């Protein structure tokens, strides 16, 4: 099955959803910029996504956090990533997440990309 796919397709299948999410963020965030990723993901997954997005998005500065109210540290871009149900089943979310305050936080920002698992916002 893998033999019939391109390298990118194989990566997408074997590294779902990190590979696709990273490429979606990269399509919006310039290489010399930074992004804070608010991740609704389990604790094991957070460590994985931190390392994985560092790799896939280099040289962008990336911070992945399970805290929806985490400071943006002057980053111009904010991403909201929601992990897949399968991943959450194996590693349930245990961070700080408040949908209401997140909506308030995102309201003044410009939605730059809407993907299946990730939304990327830019400061207006």
């Amino acid at each position, binding site marked *: 099955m*893998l*033999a019939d796919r391109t*390298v990118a397709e*194989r*990566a997408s299948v*074997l*590294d779902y959803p*990190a*590979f696709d999410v990273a490429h979606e963020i990269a399509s919006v965030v310039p*290489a010399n910029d930074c992004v804070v990723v608010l991740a609704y993901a389990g604790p094991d997954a957070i*460590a*994985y996504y*931190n*390392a*994985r997005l*560092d*790799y896939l998005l*280099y*040289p962008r*500065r990336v911070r992945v956090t399970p805290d929806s109210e985490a400071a943006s540290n002057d980053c111009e871009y904010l991403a909201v990533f929601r992990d897949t149900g399968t991943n959450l089943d194996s590693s349930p979310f245990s961070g700080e997440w408040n949908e209401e305050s997140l909506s308030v936080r995102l309201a003044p920002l410009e939605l730059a990309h809407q993907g299946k698992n990730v939304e990327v916002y830019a400061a207006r």
Partner: protein
Amino acid sequence: MIVLGLALTALLGWLSLPHRLNLGLVSGLALGFLAASFGLSVELFVFSVVGLPLNAVLAITPWIVFAVWSTMRGRPMPSIQVTAGAVLALGVTSIVMALWLPMERSMTLNSQSWDAWAIWLFKAKAFYLDGNISDYLSRSVEFIGQPGYPLLTPLYSTWLYEWSDTLADHGAKLTSPLYFLATIGASWWIIGRLAGPTTAGITASLVALTPMVQRTAFDWAGYADTALSAYFVVAAGFLVLWIRDAEIIDLAAGSLAATAAAWTKNEGQVFLAIFMAIAVATLVSRRRGTVSWVWVLAPPTLLIGTWFAVRATHGVEAAGFVPGAGFDLGLFTTAAGTMASKALSPNGFALAFPLFLATCSIAMVGRVSLARWAPSTLVLAHIAAALLAYSTGRNEISWWLETSADRVLAQIAPLAIVAAAAVLAPWLETAFDDGASATIEPSTEKIGPASRIRRNKHNRDSR
């Protein structure tokens, strides 16, 4: 272009190696790949230190020039001598490669290959995108990884990216299978010189057939462990040849290979220290001249010393440990039990370690020269250093052993097989009538290159 870059590395490396090593096609490509991938990584490191761009063409040019010059001086064409050992080794290696070939199709940097992308190829990517090594090292506190690890694997991959002008990380993973082939080729040539073609063929086949060595090369492609095992074999092999034959070229090759091991992984730095201790003891006992001392001391001092300095200027800590510090006997016992269980598992390391232990026992009661003990000493030191590291409790021991013990043993398994063959060589030569060296040599025997080549005329690859 990546495949062309890999092929050029092996070819130019072979053509640049000294004629007097009497390398055939297979051993030439194997040792050539090891020499040139090491050399190219060092060149990119030097470029970065002095402020030059990490330019692939600039780095390969000296190799092209030297290979052309060397070839024009009259390199003999590799002879084709089909021996039973050669057929065995090539047949086994071909079957192993065919069985693992489908793996190449899934060689993406996925979640299964954590260290490959989080440590080794992350640096390669960063160096390629930044055009230097400083930017990544300056930012290393941002990343989960091991910024203090040495740079052979990352910088050779950076060279491949620069050469192909694309960030083909799946292509860089092909280096692991090539280091696997180089390990087999190097084992074949080393034992060919120490014993004969039949013993060499059996040794190379055993290396190729060790399951965990295969898994490390293919399943964990992109890690640095396979490269490390190749340099271990070459360094230990040339060390024993130098002690036996007293040829300065063997000492130089051994010292460079040991330095390459230290430039590949931290475990290689322990290996280098033991290698230097054996070499210095030999230099002192045999009152060798200044040139020998320079070859033992200069490569590690210049390269590893500069790397330590560069690392320190960027505030990057070494990921090592102080032997004996924080020693915990309980952790040591746990680690020793797990390592022994894994090492003696037929599914993991097949005959590698049982053979090694058996030959150590035989050697203790038999008359074996000190030279032939050198590889075994390096194997035992490597395992002892790993046990001491596990005994520090820097990580949770079960997790640590589960994620690293197989690889630590896979690093040294090929050398364990080569060490066993080195010890058994005098008996095997007689049994197989290989004729490479008809008697158990005195350890101080000095043999000139011409007579040595005559002695080893059967040992060129089918070669």
